[in-house]
């Protein structure tokens, strides 16, 4: 509750993405509704007003001119801007790190040569506006989302784990799929937050929360190559869910 007796306003918007984050937020709206007023959520309601929002959650990457306009408008009207999901945080699948085609080639192959559709190279929100909080995940974890919202409602920057999936995996006492099954698990270089979901079901982590803090990609590449995975496959795997170019360019094999 604010000092004037009203509830804080939130906005939830999607740019270019699969609406995965919008769904996670929608599914958990019941928990947060007693504490907030949903000023704008085009995915869930028809009457929306983006003005003077306290906390805006934006999913999706910026992939077209229209996305930039929407994003700038949200930014200028909100106190806190939270990038939710890997598209908004890292650019995700559609970003350039593992794409083999230029945006122009992709537009032409999908919409034809003389299409009116204009696409930009997919980029995270932070390429265009100042982002206050970045919550990665594909999709985001609902507990992390609730913790972020609860923190920001208290004007408190949230704690978001930046440690690798391996920590959560060991804490759950899973047998290591990288060691025991030689699976191409990216747990050592991927941000935790999922509770080591895939390795808990004997599957390799495929990096869907994006890189952890200071990921050791050279060592990861080396170890996967020793297990027989070829370098180009490893690099695609590392980049699939988006990874900052600055992090990837540090890789010895790419230099």
């Amino acid at each position: 509750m604010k000092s004037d007796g009203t509830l804080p306003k939130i906005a939830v918007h999607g740019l270019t993405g699969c609406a995965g984050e919008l769904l996670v937020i929608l599914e958990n709206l019941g928990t947060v509704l007693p504490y907030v007023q949903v000023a704008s959520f085009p995915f869930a309601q028809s009457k929306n007003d983006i003005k003077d929002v306290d906390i805006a959650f934006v999913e999706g990457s910026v992939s077209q001119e229209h996305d930039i306009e929407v994003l700038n408008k949200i930014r200028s009207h909100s106190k806190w801007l939270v990038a939710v999901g890997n598209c908004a945080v890292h650019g995700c699948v559609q970003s350039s790190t593992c794409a083999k085609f230029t945006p122009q080639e992709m537009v032409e192959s999908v919409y034809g040569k003389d299409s009116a559709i204009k696409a930009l190279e997919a980029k995270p929100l932070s390429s265009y506006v100042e982002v206050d909080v970045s919550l990665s995940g594909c999709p985001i974890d609902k507990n992390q989302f609730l913790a972020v919202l609860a923190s920001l409602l208290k004007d408190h920057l949230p704690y978001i784990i930046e440690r690798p999936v391996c920590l959560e995996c060991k804490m759950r006492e899973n047998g290591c799929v990288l060691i025991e099954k030689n699976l191409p698990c990216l747990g050592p270089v991927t941000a935790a937050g999922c509770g080591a979901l895939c390795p808990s079901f004997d599957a390799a982590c495929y990096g869907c929360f994006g890189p952890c803090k200071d990921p050791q990609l050279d060592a990861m590449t080396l170890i996967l190559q020793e297990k027989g995975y070829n370098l180009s496959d490893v690099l695609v795997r590392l980049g699939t869910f988006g990874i900052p170019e600055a992090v990837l360019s540090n890789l010895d094999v790419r230099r």
Partner: protein
Amino acid sequence: MQTTGKVYAPVKVSDLSYSFKAVETHSDIAFEALRTILPPKKFFFPQEETIVMCDGDQISEVVEVPTPFVVFGVHPCDLAGLLALDKIFLSAPLDSHYQRRRRAAVIVGLSCLPDKHCFCRSMGTDTPNKGYDLFLTDLGEEFYVQIKSQAGLEVIQACSTFVQSVNNDDNDSYKDFWSERDKLFERTFDSSKLPNLMDMGWNDPVWDQLAERCLSCGNCTPVCPTCYCFDMVDVAMFNTQKMEAKRDRVWDSCQFSGFAAVAGGENFRPGPIDRLKFWYRHKLHGFDDAIEIPSCVGCGRCTVSCPAGIDDLPGVVLTLLQKTNMKDAVQ
């Protein structure tokens, strides 16, 4: 044992791994388990625990009162690990959360036969001298039971139909077991040299070679019986009625790049090599004389849990001993 409380023992959880879990009958127990993924420290210093709850203006410490429980199948190295943690958590300032759980536990030790990664004999943690309520030595057809405490005695009294007094033959078998076991260790070294060795080998190129492979994944620390580093995180949360916040204690690792980062952006151990060397030193040099015990118990968990294969502690020690000519200098 079940008359005492819930029983936890090693259970097979994957092709190669075991974990201490709640068991109902003896057939649930993997008696062959040599090392569990996590050591028994998790029962006393859990992976995550809420220390403080906040509800409006009400701030209260969470005081859990654990019911008695039994940890069965604790090998000598893990007993030594618990004793090391006792020195950390039960010295001033005392950690009451750890203490309450420790007091509620009955520890039943169990003998084991080493594999190629075990080096408890070199670390002097291979014989069960203390830290248990009962210790069972597996003599094949039967167990040789040593009773250390009143709690251990009560367990034995509750199952008196299964026990009988030892005779001379039993004592001989017991002695034979432990002396035969001594011969099974593949690699040994003199651990009294370790502090000097770590000082002399500090700038050795071996660290660069290991660090090139280091993933900074932190797998080596949660699995270590003596690693006790944690972080405190404040988490705001929604409750059904009131908004709440809690302060959680969560396992941390010196291998993560944020571990030694401080305000202002300075990081005392910025690279994998800084962190790896720090960890090796902490394990092998000991607690830097603050507590005069080794902080490695030779269980081999880090060796088998490292995806990069760089935590072969006895291998590194033997290499450094060779390089610094210390191997033959003092015997």
